[in-house]
């Protein structure tokens, strides 16, 4: 019998309480020493062949018969009023089928507004009109023919200018709004009593997601049903957004996402492109494709906010006495802020602490969640400052951290952690990098003017997952399995990991399990974000597989005329004392049957704090005359509970480290202050790491102990942890190597050379 229970989950650093529907009892965590057939085993991706042969169909590959193509006219101004739009010439162009803009588009709810074409456009890239045409080229040409009368309004795009007094006020309450505060003890007194104080300002630049697949949707209306193919991290979220925008019931909307080329947080819900495609298909009755270009992706599809952060730290007798952190984040036109103060509040057991996070609106593209939003930016500032304090105090930065990292209790909410092995992460990482080789001031590098150094930083994040998440396991009469859930595989290996959990619990071979996901006609699956998929959907899959197994054993007991208790299911074979009967043979004796197992995720223990922990260590070489940084070795150690698939887990960490390298060294959006235009909305000047930038050595280690209090698998998430501490570890290694402290990520040549000049002048 289903029942409603209260649940408490963490998502992207925030705690949410909700009511969820659960059924039956949760399964116990496997006993220590349990022999698994699939869990904990390295497996190649079940969809690897489809992906590498190009057969996998991504949203961008969806071409439906009679499909029209949409291009969007975007504001060339950072802030303006759209007074008049003349589309006559565009509509006269052969091949143009329809044009939508603020004067003819129906009202459509979108993120708190009631239109997708604003009267006042608020950043370069804001949607002004859209054209549907027979082909993309025609749509592009039509955009040039639309005449718009703009009334220009004063604008501000830069974070520090927007905070200042002279900037135009974009919101009635001003540009700056307090978003989150936390206080414990007395930070002011702690600083006063300290023997050593660090007072420093850190900055992080705007990072762009640059998912390989850009945002986009293909929508098809058949008069009754709206089918939307969308590159998304949450098909159910898209469905909710479409229902609100189009006033259609859920039953008439189906959202599909089979293969997906990355989202990193930016594809969390419905986009204006999906609403535009849906409006067109419902007006025209033909399928409509609206997929962003790389440039649109980089001006209008979200970003990691630039931040300005002030850190004050006090130290005395080898300990941290106080921590004050104030952060301002440029959210563009975003309605929320990813608080960089999250790690400050939760990572270390520091008695006197005060933090404030401010949201700053500007006329730049809005933030979107970006892999550990807030935590990447905040950890850069926090962990850099802690190293600066350790240097001033003359103590080993790892020793200083250890003193505040061992507590079994969450210092912010006061609850016990379900599990925590951070000190073990430090031990493993220090051994792997050779921390004992670290010398204050660094060592000589591989050539003249080259210095080498080691640094580290700590990671904290959620990743405990929670309900709701559901799965069903269909067993075919030939003994093969179809596992169905509404979750999506955004490139992380979800399909593979869920298939392993299913095969293991059910007692069948991995290749007999097909996983169907990314479909709102499936049982509900949560957003693929917040590092929550394995820990949310995995336990549901296990229950569904157990349910199916029980039913199969009942069937086998009937067919074999043997008590169920004497039967086992192993590798698709029913084993009795002395006999082995393939599942297919047993089911073959029962006319056309379908066995369906069901499972849902049970709530987390509300008295516990579920967190993931880790530490990264960096070994770098710096050319002190040219500012060039070369990463020799990154060691990444994470405590995320039990590892389901060591291969996909290692891939996640390597990917996180490489994406972090971009944030640390080269990725940075530039916006022209006078025109509000993004100068590098392309892959030429927005510099993601190339394969040559990847360190020669990335060592990945896991504590790999099941978190027995987290869920029935003892697993936690890994999507975000590996991008969090890398940049700070690198900045700390650069400081160790050269004595130069770079307080602005990315650590470009200009910034490194400037910091080196300051360090030289001081010494």
């Amino acid at each position, binding site marked *: 019998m289903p029942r409603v229970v209260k649940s408490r989950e963490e998502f992207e650093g925030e705690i949410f309480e909700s009511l969820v529907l659960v059924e039956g009892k949760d399964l116990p965590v496997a006993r220590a020493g349990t022999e698994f057939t699939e869990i904990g085993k390295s497996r190649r991706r079940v969809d690897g062949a489809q992906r590498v042969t190009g057969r996998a169909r991504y949203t961008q590959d969806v071409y439906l018969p009679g499909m029209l193509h949409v291009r969007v006219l975007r504001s060339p101004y950072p802030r303006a009023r759209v007074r008049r739009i003349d589309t006559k010439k565009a509509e006269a162009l052969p091949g143009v089928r329809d044009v939508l803009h603020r004067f003819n588009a129906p009202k459509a709810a979108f993120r708190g507004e009631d239109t997708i074409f604003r009267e006042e456009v608020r950043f370069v890239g804001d949607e002004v009109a859209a054209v549907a045409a027979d082909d993309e*080229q025609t749509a592009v040409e039509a955009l040039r023919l639309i005449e718009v009368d703009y009334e220009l309004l004063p604008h501000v795009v830069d974070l520090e200018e927007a905070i200042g007094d002279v900037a135009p006020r974009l919101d009635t309450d001003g540009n700056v709004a307090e978003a989150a505060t936390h206080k414990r003890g007395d930070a002011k007194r702690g600083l006063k009593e300290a023997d050593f104080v660090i007072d420093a300002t850190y900055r992080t630049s705007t990072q762009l997601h640059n998912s390989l697949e850009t945002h986009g949707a293909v929508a098809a209306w058949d008069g009754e049903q709206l089918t939307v193919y969308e590159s998304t991290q949450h098909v159910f979220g898209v469905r909710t957004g479409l229902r609100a925008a189009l006033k259609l019931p859920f039953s008439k909307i189906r959202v599909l996402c089979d293969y997906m080329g990355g989202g990193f947080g930016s594809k969390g819900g419905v986009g204006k492109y999906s609403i535009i495609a849906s409006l067109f298909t419902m007006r025209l009755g033909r399928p409509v494709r609206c997929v962003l270009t790389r440039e649109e992706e980089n001006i209008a599809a979200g970003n990691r906010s630039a931040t300005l952060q002030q850190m004050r730290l006090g130290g005395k007798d080898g300990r941290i006495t106080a921590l004050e952190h104030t952060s301002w984040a440029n959210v563009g036109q975003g309605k929320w802020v990813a608080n960089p103060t999250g790690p400050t509040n939760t990572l270390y057991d520091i008695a006197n602490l005060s933090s404030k996070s401010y949201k700053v609106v500007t006329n730049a593209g809005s933030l979107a969640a970006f892999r550990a939003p807030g935590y990447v930016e905040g950890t850069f500032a926090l962990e850099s400052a802690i190293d600066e304090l350790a240097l001033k105090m003359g103590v080993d930065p790892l020793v200083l951290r250890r003193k505040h990292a061992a507590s079994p209790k969450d210092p912010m909410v006061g609850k016990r952690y379900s599990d925590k092995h951070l000190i073990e992460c430090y031990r493993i990482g220090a051994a792997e990098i050779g921390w004992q080789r670290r010398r204050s001031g660094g060592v000589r590098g591989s050539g003249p003017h080259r210095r080498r150094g080691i640094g580290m930083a700590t990671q904290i994040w959620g990743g405990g997952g929670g309900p709701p998440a559901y799965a069903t396991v269909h067993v075919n009469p030939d003994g093969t399995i179809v596992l169905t859930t509404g979750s999506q595989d955004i490139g992380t290996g979800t399909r593979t990991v869920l298939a392993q959990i299913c095969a293991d619990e059910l007692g069948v071979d991995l290749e007999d399990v097909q996983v169907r996901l990314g479909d709102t006609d499936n049982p509900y699956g949560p957003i693929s974000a917040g590092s929550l998929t394995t820990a949310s959907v995995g336990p549901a899959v296990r229950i569904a597989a157990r349910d199916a197994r029980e039913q199969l054993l009942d069937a086998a007991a009937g067919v074999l005329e043997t008590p169920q208790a004497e039967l086992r299911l192993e590798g698709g074979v029913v084993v009795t004392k002395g006999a082995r009967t393939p599942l297919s043979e047993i089911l073959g004796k029962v006319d056309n049957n379908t066995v369906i197992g069901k499972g849902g995720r049970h709530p987390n223990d509300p008295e516990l704090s579920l967190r993931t922990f880790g530490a990264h260590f960096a070994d770098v070489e710096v050319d002190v005359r040219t500012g060039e940084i070369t990463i020799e070795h990154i060691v990444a150690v994470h405590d995320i509970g039990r590892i389901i698939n060591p291969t996909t887990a290692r891939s996640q960490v390597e990917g996180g480290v490489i994406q972090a390298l971009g944030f640390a060294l080269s990725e940075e959006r530039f916006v*022209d202050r*006078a025109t509000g235009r993004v100068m590098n909305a392309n892959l030429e000047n927005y510099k993601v790491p190339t394969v*040559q930038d990847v360190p020669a050595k990335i060592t990945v280690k896991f504590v790999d102990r099941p978190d027995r209090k987290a869920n029935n698998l003892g697993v936690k998430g890994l999507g975000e942890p590996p991008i969090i501490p890398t940049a700070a570890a690198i900045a700390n290694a650069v400081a160790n190597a050269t004595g130069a402290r770079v307080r602005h990520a990315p650590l470009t*040549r200009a910034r490194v050379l400037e910091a080196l000049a300051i360090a030289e002048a001081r010494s």
Partner: protein
Amino acid sequence: MNAFSYARPRALAEALRMLRNGAVALAGGTDLVGLMKDGLARPTSLVDLTGIEGLRGWSHAKGRGLRIGALTPLVELETSDALAKTMPILRESLRDAATVQLRTMGTVGGNLLQRNRCWYFRDEGTVCWLKGGNRCFAIDGENRYHAIIGASECVIVSPSDLVPALLAYDAEVGVTSSRGTRKMKLGDLFVTPKGRDRREHALRPGELITEVRVPEAALARRGTYLKAMDRKAWSFALVSVAAAARVERGVARDVRLIVGGIAPVPWRVVAAEKGLEGSALDEAACADAADRLLAGATPLRDNGYKVTLARELIRRALRSLVA
């Protein structure tokens, strides 16, 4: 991209006739196609040169210098061991240029004539001075990649990796049009946009580069190419330096020193080279050369680091000649 006509003639004369009538030359397309996609070039007629015989490949007639056909793909020069022995700086410069895909498509002639990479120039929505507007947006804007020296109304920088290396060998270019042929020093191909002349290249309408020639005497030089980038690959130079000389009994003769990425044209200061003539390329001489080459540098808000980088790369490049 706008609609255009396309032709791929076999004969050079036919291509020249089409160029005279306003067609735009297409070789590897690695720059032109991007300009067209971004709406920065809207040619009505393209003439694809890749069908023309005799403009591809290189040859060395001992004693009479070296000739490189304008349609030679960059990768062909990069991968030739024989050429690497004759002109080692060339391979060094090409290995750091773009990506192997771009070097496979890109040609020598196209590389010499590529447009600058200024992000205001490359932004279709910005009508900057170089595109006929009335001001340069970079001078007071985002200028970390822009010129520190030698600029006038426009602060673009010379983007090519190949060009400084060729200049270190005193390269000349052969230019043809339907009116005839002429030779010019490679250095004279590049012009600083200023006043009413908003061009980056000195080629006249209808003219085509057919070849690059390197005099035999220059092949006696040895040298190096150094390039600083924002990441380890696939980036235009923040600063690049080509240095070459004959070093006889520890003394430098016939020095060439060209710096890319800092000025609207490949930056060469004869006084800097002359000052090194007969020197042992010791630290003092190298510093003096850097001073002379960078004299008058006026960095903008965000590109002062290029002075530091240029100074160090010049020092390293020159010192390596006597190492």
